[in-house]
Each structure stands twice: as structure tokens, then as C-alpha cells.
């Protein structure tokens, strides 16, 4: 196994690095397509806006590479915005297209309820929907740290592995074969989060 963390100079790579250092797991920081050669397990973290992030992915020739890795049975874990770009499109700053690896779309909480407080920020629990290796030995309803104003929906429920309640139940984690995505930040979620990252490396 060779683990890569995609670094597009925008996500907070420092926290993920500390988490893997704590777990004694080796990783490679990957800034471009060629850094990903020989990597068979990859983490796609992201913060900021959907549009800007997708542009970075494209500018670094990563769109094709990520899709190719997905087809070639590499395991991928998208975190936060890296989770959101796995879907078809987002309404953030006008419609933008995602990687389309899982059918679904991303919208602002306020499009559903204009009185809802955004961002949704803080510790919230994940109610498991389907068993997944990603949550191996993690207790159902464990708390993870969230910080986001957009959420993914219209996803086939066979890919939904956890939901979280904020005004309504939204999808907080997905799995489609070896493609995984979480809306929360495992690297900032103490023991449950570290466990999840270790699971991704060990079992996924």
C-alpha cells in the first residue's frame, strides 16, 4: 500500500499530516498527476469554494487521474470539499460541475430552509446507514467535527453509509466500492476520527 495526500495549496494539509504522523502511517504529499504514480490509496482533502477547488483539480491535470485511479481500484477518500466534488454538481457561486464519480448534487442548507443557521459548525453525530469498513470499530452515533454550508443530496441510498441531523437528515458519509467520502473532518475529530483514518488505510 502506498498512501498519497493530494495537496492543492488550499486545503489544510497540516492537520492530516499530524494525524497520520500520530498513527505512524507513512504518506506522500501529491501536488500533481506525476506525484500520484505508484500511489494506490489517496486522500482528497478540500476547503474553500467548490468552483475554485475544481479549477485547481483541473489545472493540475488531476481530474482524469483521479477518475483513472477510481477505475483501477485505488481507494479514494474525499474529505469535506473533497467529498463534495465527488458528486455531479454544486450550486455554490453558480452551478459548477464536479467529478461525477457518484450521482448526486451539492446545495446550500439555506436553499432548503432559509432560516437555518450556516455554516453548520461543530461536533455532530453520525448515524450509520449501511455497514462500511470505514467505520469499523467506530461506535454508531459517534461525534465528528463538521464545518460547511453546503451538503450533498439526491444520492442513491445504497451508497449512503451515514447520515447526520441538522434541521433535517443529510448524507455525512458515502461509499461506492472503493470510493469513500466524508463531509466531516476526521483529522479534527479526535479518537473517532483517527480510527476512521486508520480504517481507511488498513481495510479500505
Amino acid at each position: 500500500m502506498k498512501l498519497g495526500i493530494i495537496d492543492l495549496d488550499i486545503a489544510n494539509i497540516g492537520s492530516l499530516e499530524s494525524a497520520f504522523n500520530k498513527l505512524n502511517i507513512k504518506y506522500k504529499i501529491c501536488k500533481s498527476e506525476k506525484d500520484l504514480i505508484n500511489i494506490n490509496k489517496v486522500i482528497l482533502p478540500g476547503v474553500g469554494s467548490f468552483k475554485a477547488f475544481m479549477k485547481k483539480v483541473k489545472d493540475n491535470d488531476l481530474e482524469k487521474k483521479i477518475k483513472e485511479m477510481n477505475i483501477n481500484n485505488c481507494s479514494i477518500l474525499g474529505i469535506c470539499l473533497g467529498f463534495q466534488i465527488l458528486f455531479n454538481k454544486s450550486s455554490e457561486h453558480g452551478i459548477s460541475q464536479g467529478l461525477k464519480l457518484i450521482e448526486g448534487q451539492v446545495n446550500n442548507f439555506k436553499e432548503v430552509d432559509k432560516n437555518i443557521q450556516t455554516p453548520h459548525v461543530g461536533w455532530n453525530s453520525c448515524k450509520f446507514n449501511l455497514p462500511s469498513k470505514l467505520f469499523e470499530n467506530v461506535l454508531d452515533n459517534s461525534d465528528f467535527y463538521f464545518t460547511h454550508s453546503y451538503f450533498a443530496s439526491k444520492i442513491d441510498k445504497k451508497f449512503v453509509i451515514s447520515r447526520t441531523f441538522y434541521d433535517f437528515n443529510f448524507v455525512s458519509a458515502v461509499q461506492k466500492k472503493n470510493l469513500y467520502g466524508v463531509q466531516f473532518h476526521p483529522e479534527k475529530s479526535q479518537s473517532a476520527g483517527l480510527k476512521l483514518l486508520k480504517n481507511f488505510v488498513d481495510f479500505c
Partner: protein
Amino acid sequence: MLKKRIIITLTFFDGILFRTKNFRPDYRYTKNFIDLWSIDELILVDISKKKNPNRFLEIINFFKENCFVPITVGGGINTEEYADKLFRNGCEKILLGSNSIKNQTLLKRLSLKYGSQAILQSINFKKKNNEYYATSNNGKNIIQEDSLKIIKNLIKNGAGEILINNVDNDGGLLGYDIKLIKHISSNINIPLLALGGAGNWEHILELFKKTDVSGACTQNIYHFTEESIKSAKNFLKSFNINVRV
């Protein structure tokens, strides 16, 4: 359900952990006393007169490597380059102070780049003739403008969360300024964090019972023993406050 957060605020003066009272440094602590596994979030503020970014980054690194919770950093962030450096070094959020009340360019730019969830805007209040005013210059100068208008403008320009403090309560351990907090929270629709005045757990209970703040910040009571945050949370839980235990 979203949990109420207990947030530890630590201030550093020339690299040394300080407690403040009415915004003046009081005495020294050591960071090793903090129960890093029970806190929900951490705010680190550099209050040194002469900033030394590298020394502050060392402190940030210590916490980044030892507690896996979100870290907000603040104190003298006046350039985008410095903010970039902090984000790259493992900070989730940037704390902006009264400078961005005067000039909101940096706030706007950082919010566009990192998203509003990455910006915590702090506002220090002072009471004058029974009215609350936002202040600048470490609580020294009163800004003669409607404080709600100031806050709404900051939100419009990209603040994702607001941290409010009553300067007169800072370090006083007499409880949070409930009236001020209620006044602000009923008029905004983004997460509000309260700081200033927590002397005991009842004060935090009172804050969560009487207002709808998202988090209670404290820099006073939790530093001493290993188990104190844990027991504070158990105490709050016993009064049906929805905290992460």
C-alpha cells in the same frame, strides 16, 4: 444533533501562556496542564507586542500534533501571506480582531479564498451609558456606531462565526454577560461564541440555558487539572445540555 461546544482560549505573550484580566496579562501557566482530549476546539491568540511568527508557529505546532480538534489562531493577522502560512500549518480558522471593523478587505479576501467557515471574527464590547459599543485597540477605544450594524456588515463581508467578549468581564470570573449575548444572538443567524467571565461551571450552564450560543469559550478555569473539562461536560450533561462527552 449538533453539540454545544466548550472552547479553550489560550493567549501567548512572547511565547508564554498567559491568563488575562481586563485584557492585561496576569500570570504564567504551562500548556501541559490542558486536557487535550476533552476540549471541543481551541483558540490560540498571540498577544505579544512584538510579533514573532516563527515562535507562534512553534506553539501552534505543539497543539496541532497533540490535539486533534479544530484550531483557530489570531493576534496580529494583518496580511494574506501570514494567514496563508497559518492555514498551511494546520489551522482551521483565522481569528480577526477589531482591525477588520475598520478595514474589511482582508476579511473579504480570506473568506473568498478559504470560505466563511474559516473566519472567526471577534468583537470586544464595552458598556457606556447602559449601551453596548464595539471597541478597537484592545478594548481601549469605543466605536461610536450601532454595534449590530457593525456585526451585520462583518457577516456580509465573510465572517462565518462571531466571538463576543465584554472587556469589563474579561478575567473577572463573574459570569458571562447574558444580556449582551442575548442581544447579539437574537439578531444574527451565524454561530455565536461567547467569551469573558466564566468563573465556574454554573456560569457555562447559565450561558447555555439562557442564550442560544453555539459555544462557550473560557480562558480561566480549565487549565489546572487533567480532568476538569471532562467533569465540566458531565456537569452540563446532567442538566440536559447537549455536549460531547
